């Protein structure tokens, strides 16, 4: 029997996540928010081609008169232009991609990234929520199901206004349900969205009754998994194993560890046995 080379190790979804804090929503801004930047960057990419196409003869003559130095300057200017373009592209991408809305069973977290050197994080407990609403305006937003979420708070807490979130109606419904449960005194580990869609990870809705992604932390809690795996961890030894781990962790964006095959087989056998005896239900109904 062939066993997988790796196993997933559960990682906190965000920096100060509690051990048993379940995550319902991790949403970034929709790509619609980046389209304007993407068009500008693409247009700037075409500028040198246009310059060369229009002023071909003039540039050729200038280079012929200037000689080697003119070539050097042309190469340097072109390289600097494309490097600056990369800098502009990456700066605007960081400003777009690192804005996040995280909704857990305890709180709502908004991460606002502006450029490279400004990152703000706001947190709001469900008990403080007074009113939630969403707005979808414009052709692109309606077509791609993108909208803004507005959360009004009680007292002096800061209001939340999160722009260009995918599926705003799902986000609205989940926050609305959780806030209502919090107000009526339901404990945080018993709160659950009431609709058929219980989460939104990236732009992927999570349906009730289906297997939840590991990042939602619906299992036995982060530290329990970590303890279990850390006792049975097998370190990569060969160069191939080390490269594999680096590749999967950095290129595929997945946190993986090497596993002890015997331990994994034993664990799978026990789980199967428990399922057969009806001791383990589906992931969603565990909590």
């Amino acid at each position, binding site marked *: 029997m062939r066993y997988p080379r790796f196993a997933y190790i559960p*990682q906190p*979804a965000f920096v100060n996540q509690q051990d048993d804090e379940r995550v319902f929503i*991790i949403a*970034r801004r929709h790509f619609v928010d980046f389209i304007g930047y993407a068009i500008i960057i693409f247009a700037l990419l075409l500028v040198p081609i246009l310059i060369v196409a229009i002023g071909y003869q003039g540039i050729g003559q200038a280079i012929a008169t200037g*000689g*080697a*130095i003119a*070539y*050097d*300057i042309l*190469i*340097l200017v*072109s*390289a*600097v232009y*494309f*490097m600056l373009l*990369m*800098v502009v*592209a*990456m700066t605007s*991408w*960081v400003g777009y*991609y*690192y804005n996040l809305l995280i909704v857990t069973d305890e709180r709502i977290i908004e991460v606002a*990234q502006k450029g*490279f050197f400004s*990152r703000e994080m706001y947190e709001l407990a469900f008990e403080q929520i007074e009113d939630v609403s969403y707005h979808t305006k414009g052709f692109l937003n309606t077509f791609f199901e993108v909208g803004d979420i507005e959360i009004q708070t009680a007292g002096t807490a800061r209001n939340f206004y999160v722009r260009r979130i995918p599926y705003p109606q799902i986000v609205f419904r989940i926050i609305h349900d959780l806030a209502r449960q919090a107000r009526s005194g339901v404990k945080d580990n018993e709160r659950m969205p009431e609709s058929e869609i219980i989460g939104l990870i*990236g732009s992927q809705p999570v349906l009730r009754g289906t297997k939840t992604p*590991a*990042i939602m932390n619906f299992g036995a809690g982060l530290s329990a998994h970590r303890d279990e795996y850390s006792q049975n961890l097998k370190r990569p030894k060969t160069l191939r194993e080390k490269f594999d781990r680096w590749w999967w962790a*950095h*290129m595929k*964006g*997945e*946190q993986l560890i090497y596993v002890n095959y015997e331990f994994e087989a034993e664990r799978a056998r026990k789980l199967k046995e428990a399922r057969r005896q009806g001791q383990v239900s589906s992931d969603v109904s565990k909590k």
Partner: protein
Amino acid sequence: MTAVVFILFFIIVIIYAIFTMVLFYHVGRYSFIGDISKRVFAFYVGTSAIIIAVAFVLLILNHILSLNAIS
């Protein structure tokens, strides 16, 4: 003059490398499991390496060709 051009080129590349390190810090610190940050960073590094390598090769070629023209 060629030396000045090469020094200028290396200064530009060093400034660019500092920017890349800032970007690497952000990607390493703020990326999530399963997001595309690291793939975008890999694409950025690859494209940058091509731009720098092409510019460097062209500068060297230009230098060699101008030396041949003089001799």
